[in-house]
């Protein structure tokens, strides 16, 4: 079946292309990109006039929760949330039960995704067995089973020696380590960002340094080993400074930031809304400025959601007892578009952070719109205004601090491997 995307403004960061042009897709591949493509009858036409036609968006940081925590999310619901949110490919983190620390679990995830999923799913394998931080996981097996990176996300790899070995070993397979940077000695018991507002709300704080000391350590180890280090969900100004320095030194260090750390501050914990409880915590307005500066000067490589769906009971409770995490797949585009709308981030750069940026980190041949490329395409309606209604999420996790907020700029269509996976927020 052929698919013609007609009249849209194509934004393709890998080539710098920004023009109104048609795209013809056949057999999952982009066959033609040119003005006014004329076709015969048996072609599905997507009217993309006044829409932004981008390479398929990729999210490096998603918790699909299956196997083990299917009451929070499963591969079927999580990939539907992704499609509705405009993502064509997602990486799923290994903190499942059992942990994705061996080929069997990685294969299970791949097979489930092929059967019940609606977008491309790339598993991330664990760095250490059980994510316990003691012994290396069977990394070669994980690579064979299709893992595109390694992470103990949810917790840090505390031992510097094991992290060093993991980097050396992963380097044999040219595999990035996605590091969750947290010195748990400094963060233990913390509920929110440490600062004026943690004092005012009487909640134990998590200082910036809980993240930064581990960012610094991991960068040092990346220097020692020459490994590919990807730093997850950076939230502080000095973390960005450290990455900037590492890049200047020529180290292979990349990083991601999340939509919530780009737009929300610790002040919103007022009223003890557990949906705003997230790790790393929401920081300050100065940190937001630094993250945006990092985006604009090339220090930040991609935007990832850290989609962390939770069931109602783990958020509808006392603040200290509530789980950390935000359900982010279905709000990422509108939230980041709010920064594009106000001129804080350039549109081309924003698309880059969701496409070729993450694709390069996990080394997959996606994230670009060109003839011969896999037809993963995300179309955005930049003028659509809609209010976030968590009860309408495909994700089982309704935990979002953006509930009832209005945004302009929403996903219009999600095309995965040449097939229409979702249109106007509705999954096919």
């Amino acid at each position, binding site marked *: 079946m052929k698919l013609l995307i007609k009249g849209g403004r194509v934004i393709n960061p890998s080539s710098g292309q920004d023009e109104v042009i048609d795209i013809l897709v056949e057999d999952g591949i982009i066959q033609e990109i040119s003005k006014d493509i004329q076709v015969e009858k048996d072609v599905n036409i997507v009217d993309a006039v006044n829409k932004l036609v981008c390479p398929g968006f990729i999210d490096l940081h998603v918790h699909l929760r299956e196997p083990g925590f299917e009451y929070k999310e499963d591969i079927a619901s999580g990939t539907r949330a992704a499609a509705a949110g405009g993502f064509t490919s997602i990486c799923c983190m290994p903190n499942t039960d059992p942990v994705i620390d061996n080929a069997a679990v990685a294969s299970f995830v791949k097979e489930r995704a092929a059967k019940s999923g609606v977008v491309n799913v790339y598993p991330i394998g664990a760095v250490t067995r059980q994510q316990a931080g003691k012994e290396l996981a069977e990394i070669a097996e994980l690579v064979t089973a299709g893992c595109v990176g390694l992470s103990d996300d949810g917790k840090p790899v505390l031992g510097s020696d094991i992290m060093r070995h993991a980097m050396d070993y992963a380097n044999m397979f040219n595999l990035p380590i996605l590091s969750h940077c947290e010195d748990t000695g400094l963060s233990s018991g913390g509920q929110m960002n440490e*600062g004026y507002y943690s*004092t005012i709300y009487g909640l134990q704080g998590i200082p910036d340094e809980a993240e930064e000391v581990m960012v610094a350590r991991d960068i040092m180890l990346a220097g020692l080993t020459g490994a590919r280090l990807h730093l997850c969900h950076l939230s502080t100004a000095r973390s960005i400074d450290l990455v900037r320095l590492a890049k200047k030194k020529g180290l292979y260090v990349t990083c991601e930031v999340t939509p919530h750390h780009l737009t929300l501050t610790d002040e919103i914990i007022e009223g003890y809304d557990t949906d705003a409880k997230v790790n790393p915590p929401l920081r300050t307005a100065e940190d937001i400025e630094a993250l945006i500066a990092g985006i604009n000067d090339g220090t930040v490589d991609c935007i990832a959601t850290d989609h962390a769906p939770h069931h109602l009971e783990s958020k509808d409770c006392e*603040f200290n007892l509530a789980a950390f995490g935000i359900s982010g797949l279905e709000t990422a585009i509108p939230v980041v578009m709010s920064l594009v709308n106000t001129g804080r981030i350039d549109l081309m750069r924003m698309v880059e952070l969701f496409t070729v940026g993450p694709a390069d980190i996990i080394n997959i041949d996606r994230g670009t719109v060109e003839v011969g490329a896999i037809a993963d395409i995300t179309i955005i309606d930049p003028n659509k205004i809609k209010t976030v209604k968590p009860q309408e999420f495909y994700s089982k996790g309704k935990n979002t601090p953006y509930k009832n907020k209005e945004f302009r700029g929403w996903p219009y269509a999600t095309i995965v491997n040449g097939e229409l996976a979702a249109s106007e927020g509705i999954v096919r």
Partner: protein
Amino acid sequence: MNQKDLLGLKELSREDIESILDTAVPMKDIIKRDIKKVPTLRGKAMVTVFYENSTRTRTSFEIAGKYLSADTVNLAVSTSSVQKGESLKDTVKTIEVMGFDLMVIRHSMSGTPHYVSRNTNMSVINAGDGTNEHPTQALLDLYTIREKKGTLEGLKVAIVGDILHSRVARSNIYGLSKFGCEVRVVGPATLMPPGLEKMNVKSYHSLDAALKGVDVINILRIQKERQQTGLFPSMDEYANLYMLRPEHLQIAGEDVLVLHPGPMNRGIEISTQVAEGLNSVINEQVTNGVAVRMALLFLMMGGSKNEVIN
């Protein structure tokens, strides 16, 4: 005062605070009577739910309700269905549907009264939540200071001890600041929260320096577990640096008031000579606590503050 709940002094206006303190004055007279009972809240029902230990706050609320003829019930959390794993939300709902008008809650986790408030139609009074607020303690402190000093306006108040973990300190800072007081806090650097300057509070590590010229000293209880988590070296060292002793009162001035929310660690944060000395108003604080809580219950469950109390 015109609101459903009392969650903290942070969000209370100066006028509301004054209204509570003014209402507490005739309430204190009731406590001193031979027949300590007025029918004001007859037919109203209140429950105290304490997830943390308490001697004075819980008893104070209960007797305050009884003096006003409200039906008061105490939920013993340690023998309740909470121990069977019942969620707070369900516990609150269960209490509500028995017909209670007001719930007094103490909890070890900050923000819990706010959460309860969102999930019930009952009035909610925060009797201390984690390290956030203890509004009725601060109200009784304000009452005591105002009664002794005649005014709150422009006083210099030093709060001594574990500021980081103290809900009493926070509520006092909010309350005192609304009356133009100069608030100083003093304690070891490891027990100071960030952002104090933004709260217009001066912080000190030297007790002598902090006490110079103050009108009021409010001593906080120090908890042993803070030492065990590495925040200060030993109780002895703490006592050497921060125990309020008679010589400190000289630095402040002879009219200085000494407050302590209790329970006291004598010989650690306060010496017995000071606790039992002429400047101490620690026992009066407890009496005033009943009066202030009567005022609150009256304002929240009763009627307007103009209603005659007899």
